[in-house]
């Protein structure tokens, strides 16, 4: 699935200082949908190069990290359960550091 991922507010420092990543994410085995939960795991494994604890806490993002799916706060779309679609844009912004 083609997605655009954007990291801001300092989070880009965890992925080689690149803010915008055009990525192709495979659907999880035996599944025909991709959720934010799956995406976070994928990001943790494939994009985060250092200090993952700045991004992830438990199975979700660290408190203080904003997540927007197509410019909309993921709180409105079901957070981890949000299902992603082809060409979606997901933005992660840390409010904890950077500036």
């Amino acid at each position, binding site marked *: 699935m083609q997605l655009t991922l954007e990291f801001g507010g300092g989070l880009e420092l965890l992925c080689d200082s690149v803010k915008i990543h055009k990525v192709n994410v495979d659907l999880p085995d035996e599944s025909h949908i991709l959720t934010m939960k799956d995406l976070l795991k994928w990001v943790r494994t494939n994009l985060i190069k250092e200090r993952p604890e700045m991004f992830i806490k438990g199975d979700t993002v660290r408190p203080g990290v904003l997540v927007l799916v197509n410019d909309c706060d993921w709180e409105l779309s079901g957070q981890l359960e949000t299902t992603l679609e082809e060409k979606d844009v997901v933005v992660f912004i840390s409010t904890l*550091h*950077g500036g």
Partner: protein
Amino acid sequence: MEAGEAKSKKAGGPRLCCICNLRRPVLKRPKTLQQICRECFYEVFEEEIHQVIVKNHLFKSGERVAIGASGGKDSTVLAYVLSELNKRHSYGLDLFLLSIDEGITGYRDDSLETVKRNEVQYGLPLQIVSYKDLYGWTMDDIVKMIGLKNNCTFCGVFRRQALDRGAALLKVDKIVTGHNADDIAETVLLNILRGDIARLSRCTSITTGEDGPIPRYYFSTECIYSPNAYRGFAREFIKDLERLRPKAILDIIKSGEDFRIATTTKMPEQGTCERCGYISSQKWCKACVLLEGLNRGLPKMGIGRSRAGDVNGDLHNKNESKSGPTVKSIESRKQCGSLDF
């Protein structure tokens, strides 16, 4: 448009903004838990700030007002909102942007570029004052001399005074600074944890220093998109609380505002610095003490508890009755890197 509709279906929640009932909501306001669209958020946010300005009689027509501008999110939002409201409601204010250049290579350069963009975007004249011009030292110079350990103390103390000095250059009547709710809540919490009653009562006050050189007004922006210096555990704690109960952050600020200081609590007396005339509860203000230390090659002077050679330390010994132990203990609890209102 089609994509927008598809997404709102997928969202499963209410499809329309609960204020206008027209557009797709993009955020849930922690303050009200309302799901609202971008346009309505701007509208209620700006209107609430206008109400705060009116209710607290923050400005008078014809006043000159400096906006403390760091190039970060909070001050950028403040510059936009205040210049917008000034036009919309005809406040009649002369607005200026005031920036501090601490002289940190590779850090300030970028954010000063943002401020220069704000200058053009909002048509506000910009004044930049530098540590180098005011004190003869850049932060790079200071770090070279003292290392990385206590440099936040220098930077914080110098910045507060630099704002006032910049304001004097611009001949403004007031300084406004923008803060987000997370920062204020964190400051309330830190002041409670430190037992710093003087700062606890000041840190949520909307104006400070009305007897001092220039009154300062603080706007607390309900900022959900605010990158900020990470201030450790307290920040993560309040963000954890917020996840359980979104209003927690605003409630902490409310607690800070509602604290009543017992009249028996001894508060430090505010006077003026004998050397530079800036407000100070000591003989010399903190900036003068720190500067004296730098210039005399004793950079630890003024950091932590009073040491031999500290002009205010000497003063304590000679004149115990004036400052007294309460003042001294508050002084010694100042930590570096804290927002200090």
